[in-house]
């Protein structure tokens, strides 16, 4: 069975018979149809589409040992979270508008300014950023005012992390899902403890859902 997380920038695939998940750029993942999928493009590209929040929550249920936790997924285009208390979903949020294109913008900026986020340090100050696209003007302004490009981008990323942290309810401990788990600057920009779970959490959720008796029975 082919499971997929059809994201805006990347497609995550898991052939349940093969074992290890694969990552493809969305622009290169033409012609792939999954049996069960989640993500923005799943409706057109899968036999069965699963709500992203449901997949995220199910993935968290597999990967997180506690029964009370907050799990935040930062994607290319949006951010979403689920909060569980004593094993029951207590709150959730999905910010597609004001969180627009945060992950996408972070990747874009690294390419444009030739930055390596693994070597950058967290700045003392941050920008007030609620939207990836609109937040870029802060970078341009800071550079004009004399900040280095790296410093300006780092402030932007810290602003995004703070915004995502508040959106998730400002938890003491935050589990993180999505491609930004591979960005140490982003993770270190959060004020609290962050535990990255990687970019395949939603695939893990899909696998758990398919394993549940009757969930995908015709």
């Amino acid at each position, binding site marked *: 069975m082919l499971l997929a997380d059809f994201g805006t920038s990347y497609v995550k695939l898991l052939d349940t018979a093969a074992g290890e998940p694969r990552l493809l750029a969305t622009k290169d993942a033409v012609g792939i149809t999954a049996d069960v999928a989640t993500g923005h493009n799943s409706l057109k590209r899968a036999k069965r589409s699963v*709500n*992203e*929040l*449901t997949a995220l*929550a199910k993935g968290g249920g597999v990967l997180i040992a506690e029964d009370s936790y907050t799990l935040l997924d930062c994607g290319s285009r*949006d951010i*979403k979270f*689920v909060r569980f208390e004593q094993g*029951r*979903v207590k*709150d*959730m*949020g*999905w*910010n*597609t*508008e004001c969180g627009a294109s945060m992950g996408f913008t972070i990747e874009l900026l690294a390419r444009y300014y030739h930055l390596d986020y693994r070597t950058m340090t967290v700045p003392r100050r941050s920008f007030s950023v609620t939207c990836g696209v609109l937040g870029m003007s802060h970078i341009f302004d800071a550079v004009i005012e004399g900040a280095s490009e790296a410093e300006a981008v780092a402030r932007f990323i810290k602003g995004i992390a703070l915004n995502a942290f508040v959106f998730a309810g400002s938890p003491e401990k935050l589990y993180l899902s999505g491609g930004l788990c591979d960005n140490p600057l982003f993770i270190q920009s959060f004020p609290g403890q962050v535990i990255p779970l990687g970019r395949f959490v939603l695939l893990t959720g899909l696998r758990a859902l398919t394993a549940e008796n009757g969930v995908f029975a015709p």
Partner: protein
Amino acid sequence: MNAENRVAIVGVPPLAVIRQLEAEGAEIIDLDMPVSGVSLERASHCLPKVYCAILRTVAANAISLRPRRIFIDIGRGKCDGAAHLATILRYALPDSEVIAVENHDRQPFSAPRCQTAMPLIDKMRAITASVTSSAAHPFFVPCRATAGFWGVPPRDFSLLEPFPDTTHVFGWARCMENKTPDNSELEEFFDPTVPTVFFAQSFCAKSALVRHLAARHPCALAVDSDVATSGSGQAKIQAFLELNGVR
């Protein structure tokens, strides 16, 4: 039915008003509900764009339809915004008679549609339509609730699509069907045994009550929506129901 007989209502006017209009043979139009072909932009010259979408709908409908009379509930059964809107409409529509009323009716009509098995969108349409009639409610077979919807009828009913037919309706929508819009005890009532979505329109004062009640409910999700239901808003509700085993 000619335009002269057309009378508009906002909120839930007292039963005596509805009976009077029925005796006159008036065609009663509910301005709270979107009217086909009427753009919300029609409200933009008299109301801020960032404002309750229901009240903007009322203003747009009133300006477009220009009813001869408008009965608008400005009491606790509606909201402060309706009182301000009544003032504004008097200026915007000098040829219309804007009649401010307050509904303090206490006679319960019961709320059978709120507790019957029916697609939630149809249920909410039936509840809102019942406001324009003084007739006793027909009998509806009650069902066992598997989910709850607490709140006002949303501006965009597509918000209700993810709910099962066995969803019970609570909050002000239940007060509407009961014809007691100023009944805070009934409005604050919910069923703690079923997963419940607590809803308010964005920019509505009831959003405070939504947060308060959702925090007291053991299995709740608080949501708000403005003019149209967003895909993510609907997905939140769908995921909440799925994760709580509601089919």
